[in-house]
């Protein structure tokens, strides 16, 4: 697998405080990498460092296996990006905005038409961008990022300000990019549900530090089922079951077991009842992805 982005110990300090610290991001070819974190976690700062807009205090960036500093033009030529809110010139029409970018990218006219078609802005391309809705500006920003049909696309919260239909549309678009155009996508978001639906890989950043980076499936695997059992005498029940090689965890007046087949649960129940301990509750529990995210980031309120 080819490494598209790899950062090593990437850090940024502002006034002595780390906004991003020791970030080791790895994005491979064909990934849709979801970069997830609560607001203010350092996502935008990290993405801006990838593109050279913000200069790292420490560490470095490799893109396409090349060091950023010495290969800036090569890297930018193969990377499309939309950082923070979309960039646009309000006094120009959508098409004129595309033309500005077209000159800088040096791509043929058909790229402009194609990009506008993909984000479905063709019918509004003559209108001044200052009169666009936020959703249209966002789509224009995506069109500008797509125009060069780059190998790598970096989108910072691309569904911000879109209505549910628009979000769905952009989501489908992003999902289709690796297959249709062979692109690798890095998308940031503060919404787990969004990343959950599109991403194949996920990196979770909190307080500037990467606290999880693996495949989406690996994150989902953490949301396994458990069985919780409540009895009239928890500690005695625990010691009895341990004799039979069960390994429950005592937590909040419950004994928690990893997921197990029905027969085993029946066995446990029978063991306890015959020992004279009344079983009051047996529940199946499932940790939601949201809970894992919240556990990892330690933030409940901001989401």
């Amino acid at each position, binding site marked *: 697998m080819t490494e598209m982005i790899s950062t090593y110990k990437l850090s940024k300090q502002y006034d002595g405080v780390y906004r991003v610290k020791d970030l080791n991001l790895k994005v491979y070819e064909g990934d849709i990498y979801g970069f997830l974190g609560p607001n203010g976690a350092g996502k935008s700062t990290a993405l801006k460092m990838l593109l050279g807009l913000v200069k790292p205090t420490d560490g470095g960036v490799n893109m396409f296996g090349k060091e950023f500093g010495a290969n800036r*033009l090569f890297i930018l030529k193969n990377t499309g990006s939309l*950082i923070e809110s979309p960039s646009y010139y*309000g*006094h120009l029409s959508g098409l004129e905005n595309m033309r500005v970018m077209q*000159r800088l990218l040096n791509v043929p006219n058909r790229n402009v038409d194609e990009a506008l078609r993909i984000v479905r802005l063709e019918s509004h391309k003559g209108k*001044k961008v200052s009169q666009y809705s936020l959703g249209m500006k966002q789509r224009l920003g995506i069109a500008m990022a797509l125009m060069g049909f780059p190998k790598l696309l970096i989108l910072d919260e691309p569904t911000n300000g879109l209505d549910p239909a628009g979000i769905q549309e952009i989501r489908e678009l992003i999902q289709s990019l690796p297959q249709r155009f062979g692109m690798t996508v890095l998308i940031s978001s503060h919404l787990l549900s969004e990343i959950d639906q599109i991403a194949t890989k996920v990196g979770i950043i909190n307080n500037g530090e990467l606290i999880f980076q693996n495949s989406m499936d690996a994150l989902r695997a953490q949301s396994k089922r458990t069985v919780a059992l409540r009895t009239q005498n928890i500690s005695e029940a625990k010691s009895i079951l341990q004799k039979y090689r069960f390994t429950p965890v005592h937590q909040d007046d419950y004994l928690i077991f990893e997921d197990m087949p029905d027969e085993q649960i029946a066995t446990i129940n029978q063991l306890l009842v015959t020992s004279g301990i009344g079983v009051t509750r047996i529940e199946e529990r499932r940790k939601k992805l949201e809970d894992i995210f919240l556990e990892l980031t330690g933030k409940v309120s901001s989401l």
Partner: protein
Amino acid sequence: MLIRTFSSECIKLRHSYIWIVLSVLPIFSVLIGCANYVFNRGILQNEWYSLWTQVGLFYGEFFFPVLIGICCAFLCRFEHINQNWNSILTAPVPIRDVFLAKLMMVGLLSAVTQAFFLSLYFIAGKWVGLISPFPSETLGWIFRGWVASLAIGGVQLWLSMRIRSFAVPVGVSICATLIGLGLYVNHLGMFYPYSLLTIGMGVLSQDSLAMMEHVLFYGMSGLFIILFCISGIRRLKKTDIVA
């Protein structure tokens, strides 16, 4: 690549009102200058040269440098708003070209303004009834004025890229022009971009420049242009973009 960046700058000027500023200020200078000339014909007896002192005074000593300041602030304003630095500086063009393309645009706008001013001066001269032949020195004044405008443009662009406000760099250009008048009077004009314009355009003294003065004028203008380009480009490269 510089040409590509410059041509993208050209698109950005569509539908803008900068042309109004570019035409109104020279018209204004020539009108005031003409009125002065007509009312003071008694003392102003040197035909075209006298007219030049009058129209040139308002133009070269005040409106033109401020106009350059406005152009520079204008060219940076639409980049400062709506996060456009993000998109320009992630486009595959050298950062150097981003600054140079803007300076080229300032050069183009000031060249157009100078040409417009020259034709207004000619029309005004005919209109007030000057009969002597049109002095060829004016072409030199206009050209040197343009060279000095690039030096001022370098300074103003450098300021406008750094300061997000529109008014502040324009205000600075007004103050700097007034200071320039003081330095010119004290014979220090060659070492200050805003007074180079006064010298180059022969506003206060129509005596042609000596050979050494020519060398000094072009040398100093070139020096200011190079200095502020290097500093401006360096800053774009080194500092973080805050959108």
